[in-house]
């Protein structure tokens, strides 16, 4: 969110009331910033389920299949060694590295996907310029409304947010 209005509330209940008030006005460009996660906030914002569990599953499966194939390629195809007349392609000893690589690639995939979908590694965000926003990582409950929302009406939104008694309210990204 590059520009808009941000309001801080003292409690989760006030934040939820503010989210509902904004959604009742047809606003969709909303983001809540809280010190800890809340399912109620996600529900109030109408958020969808995170797809990262699927990413972990796909990554893990790809890692396991890739590791098995690599082992077959190395010791059964490229450089087969006769170890006590055992067949070069032996699934049992391949299982260990297959399982381990499944876990490893699954974990790395879910981490990378988390960073991408959460838009992390963007070390600065316009919301950080809001005075007092650092309370979001302490105990403050913030709601930001984006100015690019089709239902944007600065005065009406300010009035509605103030009606729920925020502890502070500021514009950011050039919004006064």
């Amino acid at each position, binding site marked *: 969110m590059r520009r808009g209005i941000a309001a801080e509330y003292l409690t989760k209940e006030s934040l939820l009331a503010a989210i509902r008030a904004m959604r009742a006005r047809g606003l969709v460009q909303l*983001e809540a*910033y809280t*010190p800890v996660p809340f399912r109620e906030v996600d529900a109030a914002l109408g958020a969808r389920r*995170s797809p990262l*569990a699927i990413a972990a599953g796909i990554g893990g499966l790809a890692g396991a299949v890739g590791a098995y194939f690599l082992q077959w390629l190395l010791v059964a195809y490229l450089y087969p060694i006769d170890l006590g007349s055992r067949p070069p392609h032996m699934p049992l000893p*391949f299982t260990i590295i297959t399982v381990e690589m499944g876990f*490893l690639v699954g*974990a790395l995939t879910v981490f990378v*996907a988390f960073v991408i979908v959460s838009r992390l590694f963007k*070390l600065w965000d316009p919301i950080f310029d809001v005075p007092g926003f650092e309370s979001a990582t302490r105990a403050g409950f913030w709601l930001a409304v984006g100015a690019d929302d089709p239902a944007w009406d600065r005065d009406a939104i300010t009035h509605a947010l103030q009606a729920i008694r925020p502890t502070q309210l500021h514009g950011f990204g050039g919004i006064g």
Partner: protein
Amino acid sequence: MTELERVHDDLFTRVRARPGLHWWSAFALCGAGTGMLGVLIAYTVATGIGVWGTNIPTGWAFAIINFVFWIGIGHAGTFISAILYLLEQNHWRNPISRLTETMTVFAVVQAALFPILHLGRPWFAYWLLPYPDVMGVWPQVKSALPWDAAAVTTYLTVSVVFWYVGMIPDLASLRDHAPSLRARKLYGLLAIGWRGDSRSWRHWKVTYLMLASIATPLVVSVHSVVSSDFAIGLTPGWHSTLQPPYFVGGAIFSGFAMVLVLAIPIRVLYGIEHVITDRILDNCAKLMLVTGWIVTYGYIVEHFGAYYSGEPAERSLMFGHHPGSLAFWTMLSCNAIIPQLLWWRRVRRAKLVLFVISVLVLVGLWFERYVIIVQGLMRDQLPSAWGSYTPTWVDLGILVGTFGFFGLLFLVFLRLMPFVPVSEIKEEVE
């Protein structure tokens, strides 16, 4: 002031507290130990592993004992932070989860040093990885060495990722409330732009859950793989399907002992007895008792197996050699007999006694690995191949040095990082 503000300020005041004399004294001691470790590693690499006491038949000795010992210690960290998270035991898991995850990462770092040094030519350690080399020679994946490389690399990487993901919200909090610009920049980089928005929290919860789900089987798999190094060998005391559960039980046992050795002084020195409560220590002690019994059961089955198999080498080791061995009796006393004191609540609640028992369990677990590795190799199937083993001062120095290095990493973490998972405790409060 709201409850959230009170909890946040209370915990972060302790996390950011300037180090006192106790911290500097420990830092100096551990720094000296780390220096000694560095010098002895340089000496070993420059001279060759002939400076160790390893010989034929005892080709695996301190290096592999220390490897198994340290990687075992890491297990309780993952057990507490991942398994207890999945079982929703957050009320006693959260306050110690960061300490135990940190313990895991730093213990695995110590463990990883040993197989690499034991190669003799550690600069060729990368040969264990399947990189496309011009000679067309690949790692032999039916051998235990690449299994260890895969298992330890996976465990270390997943532990670091799990530890780091859990820490991101707290790092952002440190960034936002740091007193100096330099600290804000450092924590700002580490927090990778965390904003605390609902989208990030939603993905964070799922990521953390997925990582916990992946880390949980790793608790079982890593030491099972390590135990397979032994179980696939024909050496007496090694060649048994008992090894995986026996190793995993011992690993969690030693891990809980190390958790208590760290948590008991830290909670007093940092004034967080109200966070790491008596009940948490009591629970850890109970789990130490449970895992202690798994290990004791392992000892019984191991000896019964030797008797019942009728295998002369196994019988000779278990009933001929063990009864006269000080290492065996140290192991048995520290791991099977002394922990029985933990049946009594008064013992579990007496911090000093609990601390001493935990230290003795660590001693016992180290000797357990000595008994398995060194004594098995010394007493082969062929009596003419029997040998003896004496560690050198370099062996002992490297072992002591790893404790120094572990302590040093831990002290730096205590000084700079959020050693209590503040956001998770705040979530519990909410």
